[in-house]
């Protein structure tokens, strides 16, 4: 994790779309009177989604105003949580897990594929604006390591070549199939079941 600062180039303003504003007002009502500041994370998250994946300075001011705190309090939150991106991201953001289990299972090759096919530097948008990648800490799916998170989906059991295939699909506008890239069922053993292979052991009357 590196220093988290707001990007140097910032837009001048931010406003929620009418739908998101209505949603945000509803979120604010979830909290008791005087505790609206608690809505900071959902509001920031929705604003980041609306903005194409990153948090901007005007956004911080707008949200601070909505929840009735000073902007520094929202900036503290936005810089604390790595789920908030402070710099522009590509249309698709590849979050590559490099924590120990993924690393042991070959996340270096995944990172190398990202460097080669997206951009040599993490958190930098590719030349065509479609992709960017970053290293993240444990995504909590170690049994299927290595993992890439793209948007709301996990891509499991990737390696260099499969990562490249995913990148190529995304670049071509196709959506790769989420889940295990080697076709295993959730986190069942590779190559099919290793135990309970005899159906008679668990079928009725067997």
């Amino acid at each position: 994790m590196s220093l988290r600062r707001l990007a140097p180039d910032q837009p001048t303003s931010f406003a929620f779309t009418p739908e998101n504003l209505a949603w945000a007002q509803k979120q604010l009502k979830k909290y008791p009177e005087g505790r609206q500041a608690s809505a900071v994370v959902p509001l920031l998250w929705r604003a980041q989604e609306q903005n194409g994946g990153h948090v901007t300075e005007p956004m911080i001011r707008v949200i601070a105003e909505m929840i009735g705190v000073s902007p520094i309090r929202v900036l503290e939150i936005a810089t604390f949580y790595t789920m908030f991106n402070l710099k522009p991201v590509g249309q698709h953001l590849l979050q590559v897990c490099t924590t120990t289990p993924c690393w042991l299972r070959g996340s270096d090759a995944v990172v190398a594929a990202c460097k080669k096919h997206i951009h040599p530097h993490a958190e930098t948008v590719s030349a065509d604006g479609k992709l960017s990648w970053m290293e993240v800490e444990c995504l909590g799916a170690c049994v299927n390591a290595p993992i890439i998170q793209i948007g709301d989906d996990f891509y499991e059991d990737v390696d260099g070549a499969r990562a490249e295939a995913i990148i190529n699909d995304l670049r071509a506008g196709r959506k790769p199939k989420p889940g295990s890239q080697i076709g295993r069922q959730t986190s069942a053993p590779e190559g099919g079941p290793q135990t309970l292979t005899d159906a008679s052991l668990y079928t009725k009357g067997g």
Partner: protein
Amino acid sequence: MTKLIVDGKEIDVPADYTLLQACEAAGAEIPRFCYHERLSIAGNCRMCLVELKGSPKPVASCAWGVRDCRPGPNNEPPVVNTKSPLVKKAREGVMEFLLINHPLDCPICDQGGECDLQDQAMAYGHAKFNRYEENKRAVTDKNMGPLVNTIMTRCIHCTRCVRFAAEVAGVDEIGATGRGEDMEITTYLEHAVSSEMSGNVIDLCPVGALTSKPYKFNARPWELTKTESVDVMDAVGSAIRVDSRGAEVMRFLPRVNEEVNEEWISDKTRFVWDGLRRQRLDKPYVRKNGKLQPASWAEAFAAIADRVRATRPERMAALVGDLVSAEPIKALKDLMLALGVANLDCRQDGAKLGHGPRQGYLFNTTIAGIEHADALLLIGTNPRWEAPLVNARIRKAWLRNDLKIMRIGPRFDLTYQVQDLDNNPADLADIATGKHRAFEVLKNAKHPMLILGAGALARPDGAAILDAAAQIARNTGMIGPSGEGGWNGFNVLHTAAARVGALDLGFLPQKGGKDTIAILDAAARGDIDFVYLLGADEIDTKKLGQAFVVYQGSHGDAGAHRADVILPGSTYTEQNGTYVNIEGRVQQARRATFPPGDAREDWTILRALSDVLGKKLPYDDMGTLRLAMLKDAPHFAETDRAPAHPGVDVGIWTSIGAAGTIAKTPFEYPVKDFYLTNPIARASHVMAECSSLFVKPRLSAAAE
């Protein structure tokens, strides 16, 4: 009360104490960085770890309540150790983590010699050197404005500054961004902290991360002479320590005075010291052929004497300024009375108060007393700029006691919630008679109070406003029993340090005499030929007309520019003097350095002049002068104590001010620029910078 055993010693402490407080009560010393008595508890530095029997790990004593300690199996009191090997090891470990990333730049650090980290590393750290081989973390410095210098690599993330800004100063502008090793203390987008009390973070910072920008690389604490004194930048009389080296004041620091400033001071108080060196009057001047020419004391006195002899007393007048101590005021009064002059006034702003009982112009609730109040009416006052420390107390009461605050005056962010009534002074009469909704709020409160600003009284209808305020106080039950535990909710908030002392000594128009406004009008008409200005700069000097003006003071400001004779006096750091603060607390300012050049102590100038004028004053030293003052105002004998809620006699509250109609003209605040209220502040570059940064944008925004 709860029993505890601290280091084998049994003590009995209130259950709401923290372990740290309990250990201190038992006489144990607990090191700390993040904990501060006047701030909320953060518990993040871990330096205050102690061993609590039964707990598997050492506990942070600052964040552990006494009532959370479990008794032993047979109901023995909880046992706490602060000196055990476990505690020693824990402290050493914490200290190691703090030092891993702390630069070893003590030799070039301004905090050196008064650094908590330095001291505690000596006392509680590992006695081992050259053990850090890894690179230290480096953090970019942040801009926090013209007052606070930042060297953020030194920051240990105690968050005292963050809590101070949010809690005490009431400006939520400092925060901690990032996390873990990348945590950084900063202001939003590195804006300067827009507080009048921001300098206090310098004292709070336990390391050299936040230091004083104007004082940067100027001196070392051990080479400074420390003089305990009081501040005169506002009428609060904050306790300060003047640190001087040789002939120069190097800095001001606060002293603890729970009853006045706790341990804070305003930025004007703290950073005005460069104004003490600039624009100084260091020799007498006499105007010859329209130009001020340097002169000797004898020539200056002779010029005055010639003029005084040629002028009838009723065509003479004397005005006292805002920073003058009581002694020269007394000397000037005696001299003028001896000459038969009745046109005396100390109220440069023309405030209509001072006649009648002392309670009529004091802050009777006392500053500490604000903490007990539950309803407050602000009348034409902006305490944030007129007395930042009073404002901090009001904020404290608002945070803790749910103090309800109402205001009649222009809108201004006071750092707490205020209910704005119409800015119509005429409503005061309705409040007094119960016809206004504010009456009920005050009446139903247990400890109601009002604060009457100096600006509200410096109007043609000032006396009627004073009268209306006194009626409000009387009718809403603000006047309670006197003495300790009593209550008096009637308060006047002065802006000038000299004012209460001068009023106490009766530096007011004598029988048949004119007040400030009448003196200036008469001078403009040509009816006054001789005006003696004792440090009086806040008047419209254009109105002095053709009068012969003597200016005695320390700085070349408005008064000196207009003067025909200049007598160079001393500032509050260059002479001993008595000041009376808004509460009526008599305090001593002490000399830290000597006045420059030929400048002299103010009362000695008047004593010498009196000899030349043939009206020799009957005192040759400060002691006799002070004895003479006691005759005018016996309460000067009792220093450092505020009168405890005087004024039980309800009768006196009808004699304050004068009945009359109050105009509907809205109130205006007397302080237009917090940083430039007096000659010393106007001579200071630091104050000028603050003014252009914080006040100018506000004024231009208001003009649009």
